[in-house]
């Protein structure tokens, strides 16, 4: 058990291509941190640097109070789970899990005790004698996790462990991983490109893009208070709507959309947005904050008309797609409403939950 510190860490490849551009991150003991971002954002490189599988070009990585920059992976006391499981094909499940312990000269009894314990946690006791090729994808993933658990390391590292599984199994294994972490409470760094995985698993989510950290925070905070346009668009599914707009002040501060519609800004936010009067901004509004109108509207909800393009009933909600001056918008409405394409629908935008992004900086103001 240990905390992990990443301090001004840089990874540069030949030709001066920087995959990671000086990131700082403090991971507390027993914390579950998820690095998330699109492919090529540097998240996997960062994980491999923590593991020691990738050299650190600049900065320092600390694990449990020691700088580990020059420590080989085997001496860092970490365990890693790979996307393709990386089980040793010629060894039984038991031997796969015992390999790391054997190399560390544990006694036979201790090895057996630990493997049995891990197998119990992961519910794979009946598979111990099998070879990896006789296992299903989900079972292989469990064995890979078992191999990590038996070592009882300071840190668990997961490199997209669920990406090879089918959708249903992925959801199931996601829960398993969370459960295992709640049981063993080992500090965990988990890399994924799937923001849903990030949101559901993490104590804190680290959103990365182009080799830098865009934002770090608990899932709810990232969802409700994204710091940048990138985070706002990356976290949440379906994604946040972005509409080009302008802040105008003709009888009350308002967001004026490209089609001329004016959406009044709530009074408590006026001070914050007043400096941006006349500037080009982007209005960010999540689909769930753009819904059908109610008889009794809450304060700061403004109405707008939409010409429905596509309707997607999902069961517990219905998504309505339309355009505002060529920009696609998605609204989430009551599934009981009967909505047809080409009809005009009156929608209510909850301005309490809107975001204004300064186009010049990409930052949420």
């Amino acid at each position: 058990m240990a905390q992990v510190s990443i301090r001004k860490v840089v990874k540069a490849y030949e030709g001066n291509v920087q995959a990671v551009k000086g990131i700082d991150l403090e991971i507390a003991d027993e914390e579950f941190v998820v690095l998330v971002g699109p492919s090529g954002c540097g998240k996997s490189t960062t994980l491999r640097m923590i593991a020691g599988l990738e050299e650190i070009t600049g900065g320092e990585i600390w694990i449990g109070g020691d700088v580990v920059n020059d420590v080989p992976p085997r001496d860092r006391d970490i365990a890693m789970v790979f996307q393709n499981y990386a089980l040793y094909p010629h060894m039984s499940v038991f031997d796969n899990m015992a390999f790391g312990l054997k190399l560390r000269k544990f006694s036979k009894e201790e090895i057996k005790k630990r493997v049995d314990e891990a197998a119990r946690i992961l519910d794979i006791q009946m598979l111990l004698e099998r070879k990896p090729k006789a296992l299903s994808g989900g079972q292989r993933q469990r064995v890979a996790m078992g191999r990590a658990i038996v070592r009882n390391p300071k840190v668990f590292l997961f490199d997209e462990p669920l990406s090879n599984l089918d959708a249903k199994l992925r959801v199931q294994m996601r829960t398993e991983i969370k459960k295992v972490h709640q049981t063993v409470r080992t500090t965990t760094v988990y890399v994924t490109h799937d923001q849903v995985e990030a949101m559901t698993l993490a104590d804190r989510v680290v959103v990365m893009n182009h080799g830098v950290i865009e934002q770090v925070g608990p899932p709810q905070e990232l969802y409700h208070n994204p710091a940048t346009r990138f985070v706002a668009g990356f976290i949440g599914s379906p994604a946040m709507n972005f509409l080009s707009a302008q802040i105008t002040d003709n009888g009350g501060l308002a967001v004026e959309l490209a089609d001329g519609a004016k959406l009044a800004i709530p009074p408590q936010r006026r001070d914050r947005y007043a400096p941006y009067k006349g500037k080009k901004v982007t209005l960010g509004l999540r689909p769930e904050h753009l819904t059908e109108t109610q008889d009794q509207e809450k304060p700061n909800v403004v109405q707008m008309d939409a010409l429905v393009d596509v309707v997607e009933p999902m069961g517990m909600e219905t998504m309505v797609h339309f355009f505002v001056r060529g920009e696609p918008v998605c609204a989430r409405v009551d599934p009981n409403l009967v909505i047809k394409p080409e009809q005009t629908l009156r929608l209510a935008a909850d301005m309490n939950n809107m975001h204004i992004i300064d186009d010049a900086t990409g930052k949420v103001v």
Partner: protein
Amino acid sequence: MAAATNQARIGRIGLYAFLVTTCLFFSIPLLVVISTSFKPLSEVRDFSVFQLPAQMTAAAWGKAWQSACTGTECAGLHIAFWNSVRIVIPSVIISVLVGSLNGYALSHWRVRGADTLMLALILGAFIPYQVIIFPLVKIFSTVGIFGSVACIIAVHVLFGLPVMTLLFRNFYVGIPNELVKAARVDGAGFWRIFLFIILPLSVNMLIVAAILQTTGIWNDYLFGLIFAGHNNTPMTVELMELATTSTGVVEYNVSTAAALLTALPPLLLYFFSGRYFVRGITAGAVKG
């Protein structure tokens, strides 16, 4: 419908007839050699090459093994057989193991100048070796091991390495690098990963490589003639001596028996390990 199947059947028969004829045609020399080796000398003298032996005898085989003259000595090929064994076994083991180690290092570890090394190896695999024989002779005589078993083994290992390295590198590229990474995190270093992960996964390839090397080295004539020295001449060189040493009558039955004796070990190797050969060549390393 019936006409079509009939036609197909005639086609089949024609095909097999052609194949059988071709097979027979190409095996004539071998059949002649085998039949001659079982003839007594009297029958050989008749020059009835295509006749089967009227009186089967293994005497020529015995003579070839025990008492045929090669140059000035008359002790048959059995000494040379053991010479060949002493040369082949260490050469094969060393070249296969070092080749697989090279292949592992080149495919799973970052080696400085790996690309240049690979290029050099590929070139090395195709260099006509007559070109480097003279420098090699000079080098070995300077070092002082020229004409010894160690010398001939070193030559075979050197010339085997480029192909062995390429073979193993291409095989190991198919083993996911994550396996090596997982083993590194598990606590294994370069050698332990090689011993506990890589070697157990390459059993088929090791067998294939060993077959290739055994056949190649056993059949070698030139290096054995030049580097092995008089006391360690391999079977191929002695066979040549035996066939060219004539005192009066040319004993074709002994020569053919000697040739078959020399060819037998690689042949037997193929018979007993052929299935690994096929498996090794087609196996797709590791899946999932």
